[in-house]
């Protein structure tokens, strides 16, 4: 087995390194990149035998069982810890679901050009581990025209230019199933569906058994096999407890429709970055929302619909 294979999850190592190269160009000043690297290495030091820092953290209750006061204490502790670790003012929110909102996603397969900007915008927004292993919530599958057989798809396409002639692209992420198999699987209720339909994980409650990953038909979940590598200068300080706050190794994480944004009326990062407007997001319960319009006027479908997990993620041809 080659060494590369172990450093990669669902990401092609070539794409990963190319992205770094592009980043370097964007940053222009080589000095800045070097400084960044130094910080990154200081930051990604191993956490050692325990990822916990206090007894308080160890005995922390499941998020859903905490009182308001307990939540406030936990959030304050985390803000302090993260701020120290990343050298910036980190905010950890616990914004609650907005009453009556049911978040839904729609993706226009006619528009998607397979540029993977959503993949990397997601990584930047959600503080995923940047390397060893790289964690991606979105996988963009490339299909030959005329087939939708997943086994024939290619997620490691790497041409000079996208889109390629005769091919189409299907980005897949957590489908936020209404009847989520992962939620059923979890032996300790460390993952659940919030009232606004977002499937979340309490990273401090997860024991890392990975049964949810076995149960998920969409590869919507990732595991932190080692200590996540999140360079301080790339760390997004606007975080949510159930969303993009920094994770520790040994826990499962996933797309949360950018809970830290969506609950404040903003679009998820993937929607915002999409250069062709293929990604639509909104409240299905709102009759005037774009997703509702799509649902009512377009021919929509859900992948693996036969499993009856009722995803809140629709695909359509606009």
């Amino acid at each position, binding site marked *: 087995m080659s060494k590369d294979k172990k450093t990669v999850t669902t990401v092609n190592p070539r794409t990963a390194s190319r992205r770094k190269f592009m980043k370097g160009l964007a940053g222009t000043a080589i000095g800045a990149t070097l400084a960044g690297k130094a910080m990154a290495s200081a930051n990604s030091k191993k956490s050692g035998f325990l990822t916990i820092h206090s007894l308080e953290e160890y005995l922390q209750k499941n998020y859903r069982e905490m009182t308001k006061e307990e939540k406030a204490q936990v959030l304050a502790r985390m803000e302090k810890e993260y701020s120290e670790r990343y050298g910036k003012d980190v905010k950890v929110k616990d914004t609650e679901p907005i009453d009556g909102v049911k978040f839904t996603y729609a993706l226009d397969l006619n528009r998607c050009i397979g540029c993977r900007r959503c993949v990397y915008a997601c990584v930047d927004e959600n503080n995923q581990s940047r390397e060893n292993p790289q964690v991606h919530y979105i996988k963009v599958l490339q299909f030959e025209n005329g087939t939708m057989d997943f086994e024939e798809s290619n997620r490691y396409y790497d041409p000079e230019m996208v889109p390629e002639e005769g091919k189409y692209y299907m980005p897949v992420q957590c489908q936020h199933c209404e009847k989520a*198999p992962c939620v059923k699987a*979890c032996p*300790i209720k460390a993952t659940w569906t919030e009232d606004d339909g977002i499937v979340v994980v309490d990273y401090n409650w997860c024991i890392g058994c990975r049964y949810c990953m076995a149960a998920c038909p969409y*590869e919507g979940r990732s*595991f932190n096999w080692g200590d996540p590598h999140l360079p301080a200068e790339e760390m997004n300080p606007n975080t949510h407890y159930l969303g993009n706050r920094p994770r520790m190794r040994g826990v499962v994480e996933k797309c949360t429709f950018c809970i830290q944004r969506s609950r404040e009326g903003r679009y998820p990062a993937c929607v915002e970055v999409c250069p062709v407007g293929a990604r639509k997001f909104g409240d299905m319960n709102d009759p005037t929302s774009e997703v509702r319009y799509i649902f009512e006027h377009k021919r929509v479908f859900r992948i693996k619909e036969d499993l009856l997990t009722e995803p809140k993620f629709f695909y359509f041809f606009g």
Partner: protein
Amino acid sequence: MANFMEFFVGTVKLVFVGSKRYYAWMAFLILLAAIGLTAWTQQLSDGLIVTGMRDPVSWGIYIGNFTFLVGVAAAAVLLVIPAYIYKWGPIKEIVLLGELLAVSAICMCLMFVTFDLGHPERFWHLVPGLGIFNFPVSMLSWDVVVLNMYLALNLCVPVYILWKAYHNEHPNYKILWPFIIFSVPAAVSIHTVTAFLYSAFPARAFWNASILAPRFIASAFCSGPSFIIIAFQIIRSTTKIKIKDEAIFKLGEIIAYAMGINLFLLISEVFKEYYSHTVHLAPMEYLFQGLHGHDGLVPLIWTAIALNVTAFIIMIVPKLRKNFKFLNLACVMMFIGVWIEKGPGLIIPGFTPTPLGEVWEYAPTTAEVLISMGIWAIGLIIFTLLLKVAIPIETGEFRKPGLEKK
């Protein structure tokens, strides 16, 4: 209390005093366990990144070994049914040994799942009352319940019988009976629930088969007794306990039928998938033929099939089965064959290809292999020590001072 101290001192003496072969065996196991635990410290400090598992194949040989050993543990029931319920003589005195094997196997199971966790230190999240237990929704929570129940049951029954024997008393069967009867469905339940754990989710077509639970039970009836047959021969040659050939051959016969059923169920599965030829065939193709140039499991699974079929032929022919050379050969073959089938042969194709069609090949790392070997060694240490105390009580050599048999 004084009584218990006496017993404790007696067991310590038994455990530390033995033949040269005993010391060599224990030293060997302790060495393996030490190597395994050293490798585990590396996993504890770096995380599961030291294993070969990654997102596409998120369970590996830890869970494979776990599944196999649940089967070995369940096989203790095989001894319980004829021994207690049908009062079939030759097996009765050795049923205890089977139950102690079940205890050791469950200990190994619990170690394998614990070592597979990303956060073993958070185990209290699972403890009812302290944490949150997603029972009865999560099949994993069922598994936690039945495994612990089975462990407790298989500890209580032998400990009670041995404690009584230590005092030269007969056990009170009025108390014992309900436990013995209950241990039969309990043994079936641990393996059924473990099978349901896999067959529960349509995301993994390879596991999502109703045939999985019966196949698990059938193959458990091969692997567990195979181990017991060999262990019994070692025990009777090294201790004073008497185990009749008749009992061993009876086990061989049961294994033969079980393997027959196991092979039949395998054929049923292979036929259904290959003939209907749907997308569900892919994992089986990966296992038996290789998929898109990835064929890591192919030599393994064909080895397993060859071993199982050969062992089946030996076991089904009474003349061969009653020849210890053939019998032992068949037992070793079957043990390895079933381990491949239910370990890597079950877990890895469940993940390959992934639900979105990626074929990523898993192979365990050195650390993972050493840790697994270490857990096996600890399990065998537990089994050896349990036997070291239980056998002298059974034979009457170890008694409360003053009650010794001549």
